[in-house]
């Protein structure tokens, strides 16, 4: 009996010890240093988009020069002729092609490479054929040691040469603050699900978590995120107690400016969360319903645009871009007549965007939201008090699908990312999606301008429609400071650093629209830059139903739309579609006390 109880006690103590060690291993691993845990949906060096799009053939995994490596190889050889033989051999192995003898080196890139220390160039050239991704980090260290003169621009400099930039940022931060260690967790798309048990138990919670404004909403609702623009009475820092983090903290490099001054005002505005009554009643959010609170510090923005292959426009002789839906419709007809499939689309992915944006243009965002949210006096989808334009839009879309054949062949059975691959290879003309697309297709698209000449435009206006012309949506991504994190001061320091340093990287690498002052607009989105730069607050639509009423969006709108638009034997007709929409909406309101949730 004694033996048994001893055994049981030893087992229990061992299990508890393992549990404690497991929960603290990331901190125990770095004794004497303060650990900041950073949970993100992006991966090191290869951001999610590039991962999903697939690496550039025979490059990303083989060479530290990363995508767009041809120009880098050529420039490196031009800058360091003594290494030309080894660089040429590495190019042949990586690319499987002969040396591009006729290529003209990029002067800026050649100048960049000439600035490198000879010892570092030896290491870089030796690494050209090394498939080990950890090699990039070793190169980063070597780069940092050999080029102290680059100082704060080092990351950007390094980014031009190597793709391991996310981790590079952390390494640079640690170099500046040796008492800190940033532990990144690459939790991919499921960053919230992966961390949910941690939030629930309050153990091992990340200090910072990144994601989109909409996806992280649950953290604001459940009061798990730290408000950034509100005074924090219990905060450890005096400035936070009086002015909050956003205005109480200084810019990382310029102490004369606050952290708030770093951002474009519209970006902060678009990142606010309006506390809902149910957040207060059900989830214990401490702010009164209706208060706008900044829980997420933005780092980049995407918008939904129609991407287009301008090579097709030239081929068919069409002016670019179409300004109205009628022009767009006509363009599609001419493209179809020329044997080109107009719209690329995968099954159900992004398909509801078409209906939604037609509604925004024809009926107006506010009117649609009033209908969806069951506001008093708002027009309905069907039945008495219906707005007949909902039905007209459904009929028009069905006509595009069935009569006019605007969508690519077999789109209904196409699985992501097949449509974007077809678009990128020049098979289809339009793809309606977020501005992350160029990064996603970078490795798979054609770079021949006669096959694929990538352009984009804001969703066309509807002549005579009630919606404000030219309005765009804004999808913000950013950082949330977790209330249960262990080191809020360290996390805020890292936030200040990332705000100062990462913006340009995101804009350049992922083509995200910058949120910080003075960061250049991505070149690939140049077509929409004028619209964006002159846009006022009224030129952005709100966050839509998916934000304000996610359940309504999923159970009523999306699921009904999928029965209408995705080709099925028993597709709903346009008339059945609006009726079913209304029926399900009423059912939903009844279940949720008359509101859309």
């Amino acid at each position, binding site marked *: 009996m004694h033996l*048994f109880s001893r055994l049981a006690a030893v087992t229990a103590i061992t299990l508890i010890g393992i549990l404690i060690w497991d929960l603290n291993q990331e901190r125990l691993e770095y004794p004497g240093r303060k650990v900041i845990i950073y949970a993100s949906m992006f991966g090191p060096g290869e951001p999610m988009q590039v991962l999903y799009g697939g690496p550039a053939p025979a490059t990303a995994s083989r060479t530290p020069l990363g995508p767009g490596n041809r120009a880098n190889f050529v420039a490196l050889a031009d800058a360091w002729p003594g290494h030309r033989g080894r660089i040429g051999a590495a190019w042949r192995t990586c690319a499987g092609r002969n040396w591009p003898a006729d290529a003209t080196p990029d002067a800026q890139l050649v100048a960049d490479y000439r600035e490198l220390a000879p010892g570092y160039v030896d290491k870089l050239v030796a690494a050209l054929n090394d498939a080990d991704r950890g090699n990039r980090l070793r190169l980063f260290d070597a780069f940092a040691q050999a080029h102290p003169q680059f100082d704060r621009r080092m990351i950007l400099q390094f980014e031009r040469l190597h793709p391991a930039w996310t981790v590079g940022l952390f390494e640079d931060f640690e170099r500046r603050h040796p008492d800190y260690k940033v532990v990144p967790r690459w939790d991919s*798309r*499921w*960053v*919230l*699900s992966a961390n*949910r048990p941690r*939030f*629930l138990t309050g153990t091992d919670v990340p200090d910072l978590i990144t*994601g989109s404004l*909409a*996806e992280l*909403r*649950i*953290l604001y*609702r*459940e*009061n*798990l995120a730290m408000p950034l623009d509100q005074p924090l009475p219990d905060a450890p820092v005096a400035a936070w107690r009086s002015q909050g983090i956003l205005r109480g903290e200084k810019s990382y490099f310029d102490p004369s400016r606050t952290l708030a001054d770093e951002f474009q005002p519209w970006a902060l505005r678009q990142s606010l969360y309006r506390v809902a009554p149910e957040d207060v009643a*059900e*989830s*214990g959010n401490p702010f009164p319903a209706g208060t706008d609170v900044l829980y997420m510090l933005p780092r980049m923005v995407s918008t939904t645009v129609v991407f287009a292959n301008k090579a097709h426009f030239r081929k068919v002789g069409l002016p670019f871009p179409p300004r109205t839906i009628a022009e767009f419709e006509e363009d599609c007809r001419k493209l179809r007549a020329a044997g080109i499939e107009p719209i690329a689309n995968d*099954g*159900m*992915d992004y398909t509801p965007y078409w209906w939604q944006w037609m509604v925004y243009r024809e009926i107006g965002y506010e009117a649609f939201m009033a209908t969806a949210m069951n506001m008093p006096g708002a027009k309905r989808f069907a039945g008495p008090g219906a707005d007949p334009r909902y039905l007209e839009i459904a009929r028009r879309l069905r006509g595009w699908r069935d009569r006019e054949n605007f969508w690519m*062949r*077999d789109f*209904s*059975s*196409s*699985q*992501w990312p*097949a449509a974007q691959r*077809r678009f990128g290879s020049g098979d289809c003309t339009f793809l309606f999606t977020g501005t992350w697309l160029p990064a996603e297709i970078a490795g798979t698209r054609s770079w021949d301008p006669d096959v694929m000449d990538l352009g984009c435009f804001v969703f066309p206006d509807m002549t005579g429609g009630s919606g404000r012309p030219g309005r765009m949506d804004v999808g913000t991504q950013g950082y949330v400071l977790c209330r249960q994190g262990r080191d809020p001061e360290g996390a805020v320091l890292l936030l200040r650093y990332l705000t100062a340093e990462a913006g340009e990287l995101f804009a350049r690498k992922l083509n995200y629209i910058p949120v910080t002052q003075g960061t250049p607009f991505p070149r690939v989105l140049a077509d929409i830059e004028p619209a964006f730069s002159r846009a006022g607050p009224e030129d952005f639509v709100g966050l839509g139903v*998916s*934000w304000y009423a*996610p*359940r309504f*969006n*999923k*159970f009523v709108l999306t*699921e009904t739309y*999928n*029965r209408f638009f*995705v*080709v*099925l*034997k028993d597709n709903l007709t346009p008339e059945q579609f609006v009726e079913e929409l209304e029926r399900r909406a009423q059912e939903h309101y009844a*279940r949720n006390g008359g509101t859309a949730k």
Partner: protein
Amino acid sequence: MIVRGRHPHLRQALAAALLLAPAAALFGVLVAWPAMRALWVSTQRWTGFSPRTEPVGGEHYATLFGPTAMRWMPLLGAAVLLLGATAVAGQLLRRSRPTARAQRLARRLGGLAMLGIVAAVGTFLLVWLLVWNDGDSFFRGCVRNNFTYMIVGGLFHFVYAFLFAAALGLPAFRGKAFFRTMIFFPSFISAIGVAMLWQRIYDPSNGLANFLLRLCRIDPFAWLSGDNMLNSIIVCGVWAGVGSQMILLLAGMQRIPPTYYEAARIDGAGEGQVFRHITLPMLREVILIVLTLWVIGSLKVFGLFQAFTISHTEKTSVVSVRQYELAFSNRDNIYMMGYATAMAVVLLVLVVLGTMAMRSLREREPLEF
């Protein structure tokens, strides 16, 4: 050693309890408690991010099944309770009266009660699926898809597995090892890998399936459209799963002593008679195990459906995928742990029901050889 002393029975019981304690504790902590907790969670509104919950009673079940089904639910509950009580009475009778007649009666009572429960719940589900048109239509679609996968997929799985096992069991068959490995090999691949592979095969533009159709001058087929996806997944599931069933059946066939076959053939039995009167009865237990495993697996199927497509309609989803979508999906920004757990409870009932149905076929005395 431990059972010596003045009260050997007591000490024996204590020793048994001590030895069983770790297993019982693990079962309690890892199975029984979570199962009871799941039942409780299914009656709450809960995001899973904080301990805060809101009790909603049977609201989630009412949403799943709809008002018509909920009206019949008390009657079904009463029937199940009554039949359960009958089964317990049978067991009590069996223990208290050791006579052969009482044993027979008790066994029959137990069997009938189990069949009754299966029939009552089965009928209820069937009517809910086919007649009552309220409740969560997406969930109903998922249950229907689970049953389609179980019945149609099961049929193909079993028939192919049986044919392959029978062929590989023939003494004259050459290259057994090669074919056995070839058929069994897909079972090694994870569900995600299988789905990825078949997604490529079914690709409408560049897939192997449509390439073969084009070679035969047949129009390409939309394998992964909403209408066809379930059948396409069934085909892929059969390819991936038939090997493991075949191995079990083959092992069962190889256990049958060859002397039985020899004796039957000497007595002039034909191959059909040998199969009907020797192979089938002697494989009965193995077949039931294979079918039980299939019923459980097909009701709980997840990976294959989850990996085949990002977005599902009610024609392509199954219960576990829907459950996952509602409980964990970052994309939709809805965290309905309570509702998803209610689905898990219904799924558990379906699995138990399926297992009971299979068990009821095993009531006969097992053949010993």
